[in-house]
């Protein structure tokens, strides 16, 4: 008990010391330029909060459960979730806001499932995934603006274009080892954003593109209320399609080869697998999913700008994949709800929301380094499933 108090006290002191300059002083604008205001009570608050937090955490033993549900239970959970998602707009509590938020969550679920093919299956750390999302969004916006093509024609085009980008960007860099690949993909993500920002004549620069046409269904246009529900079903369909694609690919030779590549590239080469081709195909498949999600995003918002495609987005998507437990489709849904859905509730606390988001990210990693759900199911069996 005494040791607990002591450790809590130390943590509190460390926090107070760390926060001293930034919490204790506030930079303020004054007539003569910058000025400083003192606020010692913020430091005291940090001391108190961290000490109490540490004291509670020390006492709290988080259970180290492995969520290793048998195969058929996971399957049922998946079906149950799908059913719930399909019926969501009809449920009594589901107002326009709820459906709208669920749409947002589903975009991230779809992006997560797409990125999971790259990171979870093929083991390629991609920190620039948002680039393909942006390519999808801008290509729909531009196709619609210049060629007046409908959403349903642009959608596959955007997917293909994003995949093409994946191939072109991936080709020179996929020889690189893990962490280098991460940093180069991050660089690519930033480069695409810079181009969007600076190629004013095409992309509208920082002002972005607005007036992007809303989707129709066989020529039927929707009232704003009905459109929310329509869009929800569109993204649900798209997300489920990506899910199905990922699940099927995993059971095919290419999926197994991706996983093998993640496990040991040298062994793969000795078995006659061409790593470059495999990496490229994973990269392009993931990019295609992001492109599809991007063009949906564009049509939903009606307005896009480089603001929506910052590195933070890539980080959030990657966090969803890793927190979910790489390779687990349901884990990704869970993580997306946790990281995107919950913060949406707290929109009013805009600033604190991102702060809490970061803290949650760190805490979950500390608690479960391999993700929330991390059991792997074999893609093929000789004997019966247990």
């Amino acid at each position, binding site marked *: 008990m005494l040791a607990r108090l002591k450790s809590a006290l130390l943590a509190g002191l460390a926090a107070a010391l760390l926060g001293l300059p930034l919490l204790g002083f506030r930079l303020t604008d004054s007539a003569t330029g910058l*000025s*400083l205001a003192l606020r010692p009570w913020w430091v005291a608050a940090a001391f108190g909060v961290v000490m109490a937090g540490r004291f509670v955490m020390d006492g709290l033993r988080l259970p180290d459960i492995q969520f290793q549900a048998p195969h058929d239970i996971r399957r049922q959970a998946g079906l149950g979730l799908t059913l719930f998602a399909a019926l969501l707009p009809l449920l009594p509590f589901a107002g326009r806001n709820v459906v709208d938020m669920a749409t947002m969550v589903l975009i991230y679920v779809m992006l997560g499932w797409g990125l999971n093919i790259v990171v979870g299956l093929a083991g390629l750390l991609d920190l620039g995934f948002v680039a393909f999302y942006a390519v999808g969004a801008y290509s729909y916006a531009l196709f619609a603006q210049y060629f007046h093509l409908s959403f349903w024609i642009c959608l596959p085009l955007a997917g293909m274009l994003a995949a093409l980008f994946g191939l072109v960007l991936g080709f020179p860099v996929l020889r690189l080892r893990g962490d280098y690949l991460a940093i180069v993909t991050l660089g690519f993500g930033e480069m695409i954003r810079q181009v969007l920002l600076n190629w004013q004549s095409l992309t509208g620069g920082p002002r972005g593109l607005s007036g992007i046409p809303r989707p129709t269904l066989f020529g039927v246009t929707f009232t704003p209320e009905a459109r929310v529900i329509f869009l929800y079903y569109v993204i649900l369909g798209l997300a489920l399609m990506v899910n199905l694609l990922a699940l099927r690919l995993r059971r095919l030779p290419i999926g197994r080869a991706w996983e093998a590549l993640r496990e040991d590239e040298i062994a793969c080469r000795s078995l006659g697998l061409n790593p470059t081709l495999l990496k490229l195909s994973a990269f392009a498949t993931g990019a295609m999913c992001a492109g599809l999600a991007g063009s949906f995003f564009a049509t939903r918002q009606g307005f896009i700008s480089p603001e929506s495609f910052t590195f933070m987005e890539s980080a959030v998507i990657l966090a969803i994949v890793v927190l979910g437990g790489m390779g687990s489709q349901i884990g990704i849904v869970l993580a997306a709800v946790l990281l995107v859905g919950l913060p949406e509730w707290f929109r009013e606390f805009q600033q604190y929301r*991102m702060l809490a988001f970061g803290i949650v990210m760190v805490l979950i990693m500390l608690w479960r380094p391999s993700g929330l759900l991390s059991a792997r199911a074999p893609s093929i069996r000789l004997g019966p499933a247990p």
Partner: protein
Amino acid sequence: MEYFLQQVINGVTLGGIYGLIAIGYTMVYGIIGMINFAHGEVYMLGAFTALIAFLAATLLGGADSALGLAIALVATMGFTALWGWAIERVAYRRLRKAPRLAPLISAIGMSVVLQNFVQVTQGARVKPLPPVVHGGFTLMQAGTFKVDLSWLQIGILLLTLALMAGFTWVITKTPLGRAQRATQQDAKMAALLGIDVDRVISTTFVIGAALAGVAGLMVTLYYGVIDFYIGFLAGIKAFTAAVLGGIGSLPGAMLGGLLIGLIEALWSGYFSIEYKDIAAFSVLILVLLFRPSGLLGRPDVEKV
């Protein structure tokens, strides 16, 4: 020619700042093989701490500018060092044996936390600081165009050189440096030989963070405006510098920083200022393609 020289001077100054940040990346990567994503934010914290410390000393404490700068330097190094220590202790230490991606995600989370911590405590608006160090001298004059070398640039370069020299001495000559290099090569063996690996890693973070803090101070003085978002771009550029020079190599980090600074200055001087960030990344990609081990890094032979 004069214009070129001016760009080189600006580039070298900028390069020194990148180099100081890059050291933190290269050392941490060398020793635990992770990209310390939050390092750019430590630099940003350094910039804010420097600004606050300087204002506190001059406005509240009544010190003159020179004393104020000295106080700001010491305070910045101290506080960022503490932050570096705390970040490692809280977010990375427990994940050292975890799957490869876990510390990276934790680091990204930490980076989000720090950015928003500063935004919440100091607001999102940019913070302007009027020039503190004035003057300089003119090296050359051609018509109306003058090649200036300001005292501030000289100061930045000298301080960078001094820190580099001191740091190189620590790494090559002291027992601490020896322990650090040993841990970098084989942490398990070093631990068996009685080196306190945890402490070595902590020290690495502390030193890297203190140097990034100094870079933050320099940027505050050099550009005169900072906001909570400056850590991100500077962070990736500094990492680019570390990779360019050869990750794990200290002279490499310096050289890489210098090159990135030069490329950026020359590119914005001659081509377009909008695409200067793209120039830096293109260089990174080219280097990785043709010389993946960086300019001064050791090529790693694939062990089969």
